[in-house]
């Protein structure tokens, strides 16, 4: 064990001060230390640290369908989250109230027909002054009330695919294409309860909270093998984060709405890739040793991220044309610390 004995403290302190101004070492003085160099690889983008994200839908893009009446039994005919086409049967609503509703629709239709006939007949009489203005207002009010009542019921009936009086049920279809999202209730569906919603497929996005400092350069997110570009970044901060939305999630990514996950952000910034072995710590900085002629000079860099073998670094200097020491860096650091000899 040789534990505790090493460089003199004073030498160490002196070295630290001297290196703060970038130290140079003559390569010839490195003896038999094996040296090899790497050329930093300039890249236009890099992957950052994992960020928490969620597969979400764009706010306001959800299309809701509500029950017209109290429903005794709701049987969904597709699976939760299934992509459906417009007009596709989606749910069977069953119960006595369904029959009542159909009767109500029929009654509303009849009432509307009656009010319409009466309205058309009295329109010329009113123009001739045969009937008073008060009488015409009463006829008109009656007509429009029945019209609105009928239209309201008719709109729902437009998505009713079929009715079955024998079973007091009807089948509801989808008003539009998209991902179906049931509103599963443990109790009965009362009149006006939200039955299901449809999410347009292009509304399913990756929602990711990005640190403000990196938000501007965020260009895409990577999830496993799936690369999804960023569509929009909020201009309003939530604490130190801003919310970014990706473009629609491609089907082949196999991501499900509501899924929480971590994503690897990809930042659009010109950086360099360096072998991990070429970086050493000095005081509170990360440094590399650049080769100029027969001299190695220390240079401070900023590590932004890493891959298993390389660091992603930023530097004030253009590193793409210089060579960086990639072997025996720790031994050279030892020299800077004053180590060496018996």
């Amino acid at each position: 064990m040789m534990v505790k004995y090493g460089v003199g403290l004073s030498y160490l302190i002196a070295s630290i001060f001297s290196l703060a101004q970038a130290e140079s070492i003559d390569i010839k003085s490195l003896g038999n230390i094996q040296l090899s160099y790497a050329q930093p690889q300039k890249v236009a983008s890099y992957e950052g640290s994992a960020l928490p994200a969620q597969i979400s839908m764009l706010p306001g893009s959800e299309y809701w369908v509500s029950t017209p009446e109290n429903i005794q039994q709701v049987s969904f005919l597709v699976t939760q989250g299934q992509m459906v086409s417009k007009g596709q049967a989606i749910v069977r609503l069953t119960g006595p109230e369904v029959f009542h509703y159909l009767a109500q629709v029929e009654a509303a239709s009849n009432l509307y027909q009656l009010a319409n006939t009466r309205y058309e007949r009295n329109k010329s009489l009113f123009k001739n002054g045969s009937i008073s203005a008060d009488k015409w207002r009463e006829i008109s009010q009656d007509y429009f009330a029945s019209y609105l009542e009928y239209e309201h019921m008719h709109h729902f009936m437009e998505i009713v695919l079929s009715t079955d009086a024998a079973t007091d049920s009807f089948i509801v279809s989808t008003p539009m294409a998209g991902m179906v999202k049931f509103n599963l209730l443990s109790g009965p569906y009362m009149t006006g309860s939200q039955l299901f919603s449809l999410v347009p497929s292009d509304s399913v996005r990756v929602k990711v909270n990005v640190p403000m400092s990196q938000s501007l350069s965020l260009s895409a997110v990577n999830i496993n093998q799936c690369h999804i570009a960023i569509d929009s970044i909020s201009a309003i901060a939530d604490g130190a984060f801003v919310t970014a939305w990706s473009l629609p999630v491609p089907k082949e990514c196999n991501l499900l709405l509501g899924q929480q996950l971590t994503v690897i952000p990809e930042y659009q910034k010109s950086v360099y890739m360096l072998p991990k072995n070429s970086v050493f710590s000095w005081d509170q900085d990360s440094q590399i040793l650049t080769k100029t002629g027969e001299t190695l000079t220390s240079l401070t860099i900023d590590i932004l991220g890493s891959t298993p073998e390389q660091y992603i670094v930023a530097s004030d200097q253009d590193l793409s044309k210089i060579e960086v020491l990639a072997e025996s860096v720790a031994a050279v650091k030892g020299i800077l610390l004053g180590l060496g000899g018996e």
Partner: protein
Amino acid sequence: MLTSVIRFSLTQRLFVLIVALFLMLAGVRSWYSIPLDAFPDISPTQVKIILKAPGMTPEEIEAQITVPIETELLGIPNQAILRSTTKYAISDITLDFVEGTDIYWARQQVSERISAVWGSFPEGVTGGVAPMSTPLSEIFMFTLENPNLSLMERRQLLEWEIRPLLRTVVGVADVNILGGYAKSFSINPNPAAMSAAGISFAALQQAIVENNHNEGAGKLTIGTDTIIVRAEGRIDDIDELRQLVIKADDAKVYRLNDLADIQIGHLARYGAVTKDGHETAEGLIIALKDANTDQVVKNIKQKIEQISLTLPKGSQINTFYDRANLINTAIGTISNALFEAVVLVIVLLALFLGNVRAALVVSLSLPLAALMTFLMMDFFNLSANLMSLGGLVIAIGMLVDSSVVVVENMVNLIATKQRLPRLHLIFRATKDVAIPVVSGTAIVMIVFSPLLTLTGLEGKLFTPVAVTIVFAMLSALVLSLTVIPVMASYLVNEKAAKEPKAIEKLKRVYLSSLKAIFVYQKHFIVIALSLLIVSFGLFSFVGKTFMPTLDEGDIILQLEKSPSISLNASIAIDKQIEQTLLAQVPEIKQIVARTGADEIGLDPMGLNETDVFLELIPRSEWRFANKQQLIEAIRAVLVDYPGVNFNFTQPIQMRVSEMLTGSIGDVAIKVFGNDIETLGNLTSQIQQLVNTTQGSVDVKMSMIEGSSFINLTLDNEMARGFGMSTMEFARYLKSQLEGVIVTEVLQGKKRTPVLIASNPSSLSSINELQNQLLVMPDHSLKRVTDVAKLSYKKGPILIEREQGNRFSVITTNVNGRDIVGFVEELNAKITNEVQLPSGYSVNFGGEFENQQRATNNLLLVIPIAIALITLILFTTFGSLAKAGLILANVPFAMMGGIVSLYLSGEYLSVPASVGFIALLGVAVLNGVVMVSYYEQTKHMFSSLLERIEQGAVRRLRPILMTATTAMFGLMPLVFATGPGAEIQKPLAIVVIGGLLTSTITTLYLLPILYFWLEKRK
């Protein structure tokens, strides 16, 4: 009583011979049964506590672990010194007890104290009392080679197949596994999934622990039977671990697989092993304290042969350190010396006695005394080693003295041709010299008794020497009065009484020279005294050191790199150096390097430290004449690797140095105080002074400062809002960086730790650390930077403590001058130039400390020994003046010792001091032989001068015989070159030089002084 013994022996000759034969056989048996080792057990009663606290900084460990333990331990009685070293993730506490303390009692005391404070330790602390070993316990090291097996598989094989089998070998305390990858089931949690599932980190950990459990529930009685019922849930493999249910509610079941990525991984690595530039896995066998090392190694080898048959195809156990080699070489060196000494002594006896039969009788005492010594060593549990056998070699020349005196007297008596039966003459001859023989032996034993009072390393080393000499001398004494007369009765005849012509001629030359000297008495005295003064002047030019470095045969190269180096970078440099050394130094057979800490923690090195074991080819194949030249060649390679500190040592030397002072170097200057920064400054100032002091080389200071830490401080306002505590935050971070072992999976005899840890490559920069995702206790996701502030802090790399006080240390070797003078000069400089704040002090240790202790011990005990010798001499001669006359020979003996040390270039060391002690006895013995004869012949000569001259001539042969047998008995040690020879060499040089001068003074000065003394009457 002595007369009765001699009479009984000569009347019961057959019985005596049978007993002697029986003792011989028992001695042979003892030789084969006594423990064999290279060195005596030099360790004090020492208990080591190794505690591992992964992820904790030295200051945290010191405050929470080291200090509480030290406080408890300080109350244990019989303790000598308490030391500790606290580093990142490890606390190494050593408690030395006073000599004679029972090791089992000591360990029990320490264990009890640790148990008392264990509850107060932070979570995750492991370890305890280290195996019962000594610094000499690392007896066998090997690597496991198999190109078809991964490093993890090799380590698994070592850990679960080889280690358990080797631990069954009697005498093996433990098997340390180093290098490779310790397999684990690694759980890398997915923060997003955990957050979505509403599972916190703590809940995840708890669920894994609680579900990996089997427990007996009790017994169920069914009719007349009782069946045991147990609750079973233990995980058997990684697939079961993946399927472990972490949370289940009405609608959802969350399995571990849903929340984390589970892979086969490895524990955080604190060290690695490389062999010839490639990573490998190593086993290091530690022997129990007091084990018979030679036998243990033999048993280990047998076991390894058995194990090898069961290993996967292509596996090879590659031994690179085998203590048996050192034992065999050291014992071989000393055995050769012993054999050569015996041969030389027998030849001398034959020459002096001029008769083969007489020489044979005297020579018989050598093997018989040696075998009886082995018998006693066996009886008193003394191991055969370099030192104890060295004692026997030292004694060889003196062993024959008793027999020489007895046989010489027999020969002389037989030569008188008295008409008495030969048996009767032998009885009379033996009886006449019995008392001087016993007195002489007693003097020798008293002379060596101071060695028994030595303490510390010198005591451990030289007590066996003294004990063996005492055993041998006692044996020789008994033999000279029993077996030797019996054998003489069979072998010595009248022919033996005839003196050889060479001796007669020598006597004539001596007589004429003595007569000439008597003419120029005063001139001779002046010359003798002048030489004495000159020699004492030479003493100041003789270098002083504690102990010569023992050549163990092997070389360890210690490398030290940048303190913050990563394991991979550290290994990369090691590999470069290994490959270059192998290419450029063909004397190196293979290189095995150990970087960082070992598994048990007995050697808690940092990642920047490497011990490189160099296994060498046989010396006969070297390009170099000696090891020093080889080291120079290696040094020449290493200087081409700037940025790496290096140092040469040897396996045992390294451990002994650490054991003795905790510091390596001739002088260790310890600065005690509390504040790390102040200690750093003071150490730095003192280091400058050491550097400017003449003779300082290899100056090193403990680097207590210089470590950088990244502090993550929880933002309380922010974090508490989410229910996050600092402890939970720290635990989470630990799982991300270090990994947290939460449980184990048992698969047969294999135990695989289950580790919560992030992917190592995912966290390799500050940026990534700050952006690491946390699952907050409220299950929301945050980044580290959202809840904690990052800052940098400087802190100590290590904290060393002694007797509960912090200290830093500067070590230096001293070259070209004596250590004591160096320390005195340095101490004066420190006193004058360094302003020590209140509460700070400086202490000197290292080998200097040992040397001082040894000197003080000897200065106290040697005068007592001299007083005892004086008492014996006074009792023998009845005159204090004559006793003084004999003692006057001592300074002249010292003179020879000093001159021979100076001429040989050897330093004054503990072995040399022992040589001077031995000289005391031999010098006195010669004087006794001479003066006793003068006293016996007082009434035989009318003229004083004639009595002195004739007496001196008559005593020439025994004096020359005892002196030359002692000198030539030691000669093989002077020329021995094998490992172990260097420790006995200074001793032999001193004794030979001293004997040379003391023999001259006995033959010439003593007669003159006796003449003056008698004439005055």
